[in-house]
């Protein structure tokens, strides 16, 4: 009972604040609404007892990316500034396209009867996930882990190089 109430609450928060994120004209508020969406998504992960993913979601998404976005908003726009929106015709056409896409997808999903797996749920702990993440044996995920580490390193160096001020070129 309580689980259901919590699920509907999280679902409501996610949907309402997703809408607010895409329609509000104040950019900083959009970032804060996005934060609410990400935090309630972490709540959904907690409800499914995926604690590790929920923690990662909270630290990386809600803690890292949103702060990065807020910093860049403060660097690039004035707080009183309202975001420019598409013209009426463009908004209508986009709304039409997205509603059609959503309707098609929802129809497919709701018609397809998913049969949930009735087998035992092992309830993996953080230790299990972490061990599998760096294991190079069977069912280990060391290779994708390393690949994504390289990607993060490259992205970090790239971001520093791109955002660096080029003093020599200006002169």
């Amino acid at each position: 009972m309580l689980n259901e109430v919590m699920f509907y609450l999280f679902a409501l928060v996610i949907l309402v604040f997703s809408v607010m994120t895409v329609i509000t004209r104040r950019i900083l508020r959009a970032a804060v609404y996005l934060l609410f969406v990400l935090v309630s998504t972490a709540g959904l992960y907690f409800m499914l007892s995926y604690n590790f993913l929920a923690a990662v979601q909270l630290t990386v998404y809600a803690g890292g990316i949103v702060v990065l976005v807020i910093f860049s908003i403060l660097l690039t726009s004035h707080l009183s500034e309202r975001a420019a929106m598409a013209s009426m015709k463009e908004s209508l056409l986009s709304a039409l396209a997205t509603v059609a896409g959503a309707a098609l997808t929802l129809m497919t999903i709701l018609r397809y009867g998913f049969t949930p797996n009735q087998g035992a749920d092992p309830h993996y702990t953080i230790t299990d996930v972490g061990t599998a993440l760096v294991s190079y044996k069977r069912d280990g995920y060391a290779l994708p882990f390393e690949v994504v580490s390289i990607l993060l390193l490259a992205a970090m160096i790239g971001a520093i190089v791109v955002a660096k001020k080029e003093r020599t070129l200006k002169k």
Partner: protein
Amino acid sequence: MIQNIPLSYFLTISTLMFFLGIYGFLTRRNLITMLMSVELILNSVNINFVAFNKYLYPQQLQGHFFILIIIAVAAAEAAVAIAIIINIYRNFKSIDVENVDEMKY
């Protein structure tokens, strides 16, 4: 899984979130808000992975690692995108997509 909550509820939430992200991406004119729409889209995909893993294959760990890697890619993408946006702001004094047409043929 959650008692009395079928898989399709999760899929409905993530579908709506995905298409809201697409709507934002199509209508927004500010680069940072477009980036936030992309984050919405990536996040909705993560909900799908979690729900499928929990409801259909609870013995597997694949869902976890897909999400971890998607989150890492999203973080990398956000960092690079924001670096580019700040550079664009330096050169054009604006981050609206309409003003950035220097390289347009």
